[in-house]
């Protein structure tokens, strides 16, 4: 029985609280995006903000992803802390120039004169039949972009604390929210709290296999862990929570102990975040400490198809993870 006062919130509600608290705390925080005002955002993350903070700080934008991201960069340069919502994160493709060539580089190019406290957030919308242009998991691109931070919460509690930290951070942040988690509830403290950037959270302890999973993949990992525990195989589920910076200390310590690594990620396999974790782990954990070759459980290298059976076949599944576990245990 927890001693702190908590409420049961969905991840969408928790994100909403996080935004509201930061907007109350700091007048330089404002939000812009498509249908985020009266409509409250397609997934209700900005619900009620227009009523509470007015149209100057809660801006329904025209459909201009590059324009609003660029506007966010400019406002950040002069001291605002804008939060830009991309209605579905696939639309980041329209604003890669503003995000990568501008937000991520402006400080460095200026020799440290400026900072860009910008948050660009939105949903990863796979798993529900939205098809190829509305279902991408693109964090690998941003992990590959010096100057950006990348955050991917796996539950309501983490989401709120991380979003608040992201807004207060003076660097540009890509904040990725799994749409299927929006409606998932968790206990969230009534009192204010922050979650530090770059600190992984071990969602489950175990000594046999280290499973690194963020966002939606954490649920998959925990499911597999429960199932394998019955067979006496104990998974340690490490949720990095922030992919850039990445808490390699925690990952390396865990892998050194278990000797086995599986990385779960919903992005396409080739060049994905899972590959990065595997490669980086080898910089930290001596080969002889590995009892098996690290394995990646990822989506297939195909666009996301519409039909349910096809989409299921593309995204990483519990069976994929169990099969990988069998391989590294054998």
């Amino acid at each position: 029985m927890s001693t702190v006062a908590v409420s049961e919130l969905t991840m969408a509600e928790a994100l909403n609280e996080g935004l509201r608290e930061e907007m109350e705390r700091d007048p330089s925080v404002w939000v812009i995006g498509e249908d985020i005002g009266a409509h409250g955002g397609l997934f209700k993350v900005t619900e009620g903000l227009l009523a509470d903070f007015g149209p100057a700080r809660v801006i329904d934008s025209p459909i201009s992803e590059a324009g609003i991201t660029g506007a966010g960069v400019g406002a950040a340069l002069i001291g605002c802390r804008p939060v830009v919502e991309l209605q579905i994160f696939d639309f980041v493709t329209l604003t890669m120039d503003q995000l990568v060539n501008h937000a991520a580089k402006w400080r460095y190019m200026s020799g440290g004169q400026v900072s860009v406290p910008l948050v660009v957030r939105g949903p990863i919308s796979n798993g529900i039949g939205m098809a190829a242009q509305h279902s991408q998991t693109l964090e690998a691109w941003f992990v590959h972009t010096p100057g950006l931070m990348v955050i991917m919460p796996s539950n309501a509690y983490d989401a709120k604390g991380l979003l608040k930290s992201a807004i207060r951070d003076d660097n540009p942040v890509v904040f990725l929210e799994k749409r299927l988690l929006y409606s998932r509830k968790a206990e969230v403290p009534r009192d204010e709290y922050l979650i530090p950037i770059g600190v992984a959270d071990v969602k489950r302890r175990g000594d046999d296999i280290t499973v690194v999973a963020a966002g939606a993949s954490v649920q998959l990992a925990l499911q597999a862990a429960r199932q394998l525990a019955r067979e006496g195989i104990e998974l340690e589920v490490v949720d990095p929570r922030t992919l850039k910076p990445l808490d390699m200390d925690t990952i390396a310590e865990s892998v050194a102990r278990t000797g086995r690594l599986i990385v779960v990620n919903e992005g396409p396999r080739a060049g994905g975040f899972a590959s990065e974790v595997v490669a980086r782990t080898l910089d930290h954990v001596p080969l002889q400490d590995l009892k098996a070759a690290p394995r990646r459980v990822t989506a297939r290298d195909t666009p996301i198809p519409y039909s349910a059976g096809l989409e299921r076949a593309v995204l990483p599944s519990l069976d994929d993870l169990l099969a990988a576990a069998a391989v590294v245990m054998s």
Partner: protein
Amino acid sequence: MTVVEPVDAVNALEETYLKLARIRAFELKAMDLFSEKFIRGSVHPYIGMEAVAVGVCGALRDDDYITSTHRGHGHCIAKGLELRPMMAEITGRATGYCKGRGGSMHITAMGKGMLGADAIVAGSVAIATGAAYGLRLQGKDAVVVAFFGDGGSNQGIFHEAANLASVLSAPVVFVCENNQWAISMPIQRAIAVEDIAVRAAGYGFPGEIVDGNDVLAVRDVAQRAVDRARRGDGPTLIEAKTYRITPHSAATPTDNRAPEELDLWRERDPIARFARHLVDSGAATEDRLEELGRQAAAEVEDAAAYALDSPYPDPADVEDDVYAPADWLREGRLA
């Protein structure tokens, strides 16, 4: 499975009415299938806007092309796509136009001149421009129509495509379906001008405004634009003022639009309006129109039955069609 009794020879005006009725019936059925969970993701009904697609495509030849949007069923039907593979596609079946890979927002039918629907707002305007230019290079006199919405007119790609089309005098017609809303965003707050059509002047080609709920008016203005493009005189921007009577999508039913506004536009229903015109002008009788309406409904029911009887695609084939045939693929050097 419903048996469709083909009605006896339909004349051009009746055919136009039939198309309007088909779209309406298809969309109503699609909304049902969505609520019955036969359709995943979303469905963006074209209800209230039927006259735009039917009017524009009425000015096109079979060998002309179109590109479409997230709200694309109407464009497909107007361009002559078959209802069975359409319905099969949006219900995710192997018998769908895209073998269930595309769904409601990505119906493509090359055989019918449908280059594809695009779920990226305004994403296909440059594609239409390039296709149009390519057809020219191939010595063909076909044209391409790019449908997009009022919201789409604020995307940078529209600006780039319009300018490019103009300097290349590509045979493309940009049809902006101004239904005055982009989900919850009224056009008045999205742009600071009265008409989107005025933007054409910035690129050096004509911008035309038409009542998008008057199928014959749309057809006339489209014919002028298509002829101009076919002649090699370059693009036109057509702004069709219309309205969607149903919510943005089956997945986003909440609708912040004023009931009076909705009522106003329900009165302007393009199908009822065209029906009145046909009857008043003596071109058709009420009975005949009812018959055509039943015909449309029957076709849609048949298509739905066909779709729901169709198999789902085999997950084992899920990696097919990512790449076109190539030596490196045949030799198993996969990406």
